[in-house]
């Protein structure tokens, strides 16, 4: 059988979901943001929730998320996505409401909003892209930047006396009464992509069942900020990010 014969609708096993539109995404080649966008879009299609989902976009590289997923969106001020999601979900409880936030957005400027929304147990899903850096603004140190990790504002590597310790905010969120599901995943290979998809689906279902706040951290790469190729970034992440941010369920009620 020739390649051209195999390429036929009845043999189709995988194609881009229609919830992800045809607009090319602005992300750098190989950026983890794209993989997570794709998974969220696939889940919304599989749940048949395209008309019932409201995403809250952050400030950070994902500020334009609303251009790519064909659902309703609001765009929040930097760090305020969980506060905006709270309002949207309370006004429209039948909608699936999720935030999509980077580590600078969620764990630096938005720490208060994140902690209080999770502590109140708002029925939202928080998708947290932890690439250990401020990607959008040129690779500055984030609260999540690892000790020893170089960034444009820690050119010799982060040190605890000068810069403080890395913040494992996901671990903190797992301690709060309001969270029902807190997990840390990644998207660097097929197995991890599949697991992250299941985790996000569960977070979405929890929010529709009114179980409280679900948090899915995706340990991610920012190959431009890290100054490595996309494949080398994945390897660097496994070697350096995973020991500090281990892949596991932190809470599952």
């Amino acid at each position, binding site marked *: *059988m020739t*390649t051209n014969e*195999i*390429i036929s609708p009845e043999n189709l*096993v*995988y194609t*881009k979901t229609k919830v992800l539109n045809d607009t090319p*995404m602005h992300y750098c080649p190989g950026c983890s943001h794209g993989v997570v966008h*794709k998974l969220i879009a696939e889940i919304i299609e599989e749940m048949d929730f395209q008309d019932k989902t409201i995403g809250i976009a952050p400030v950070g590289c994902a500020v334009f998320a609303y251009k790519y997923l064909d659902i309703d969106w609001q765009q929040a001020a930097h760090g305020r996505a969980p506060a905006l999601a709270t309002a949207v979900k309370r006004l429209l409880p039948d909608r699936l409401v999720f935030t999509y936030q980077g580590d600078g957005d969620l764990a630096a400027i938005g720490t208060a909003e994140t902690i209080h929304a999770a502590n109140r147990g708002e029925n939202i899903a928080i998708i947290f892209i932890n690439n250990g850096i401020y990607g959008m603004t040129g690779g500055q140190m984030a609260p999540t930047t690892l000790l020893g990790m170089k960034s444009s504002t820690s050119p010799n590597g982060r040190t605890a006396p000068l810069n403080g310790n890395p913040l494992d905010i996901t671990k903190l969120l797992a301690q709060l009464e309001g969270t029902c599901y807190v997990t840390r995943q990644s998207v660097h*290979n097929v197995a991890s992509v599949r697991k992250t998809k299941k985790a996000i689906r569960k977070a979405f279902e929890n929010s529709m069942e009114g179980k409280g706040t679900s948090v899915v951290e995706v340990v991610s790469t920012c190959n431009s900020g890290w100054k490595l190729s996309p494949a080398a970034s994945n390897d660097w992440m496994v070697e350096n990010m995973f020991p500090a941010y281990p892949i596991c369920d932190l809470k599952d009620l």
Partner: protein
Amino acid sequence: MAKIKGAVVVNIERCKGCNLCVVACPSNVLALNKEANSKGYNYSIMVDPDSCVGCAACAYVCPDACITVYKVRV
């Protein structure tokens, strides 16, 4: 014995030449083309189509959802 044969179609203009699909393919089917698309990215192509088993590993890891996968039992 039934054999599985696969094939992929890459959306050339959407591809950013990140190479992640090339690394993910267990059968070394893919490589970046010498030719670039209109944005200057060396896009992914099948260089060994006969080895494709349609496992979709390439498509799962592609950050830009560029890859469509087909599979048949022959």
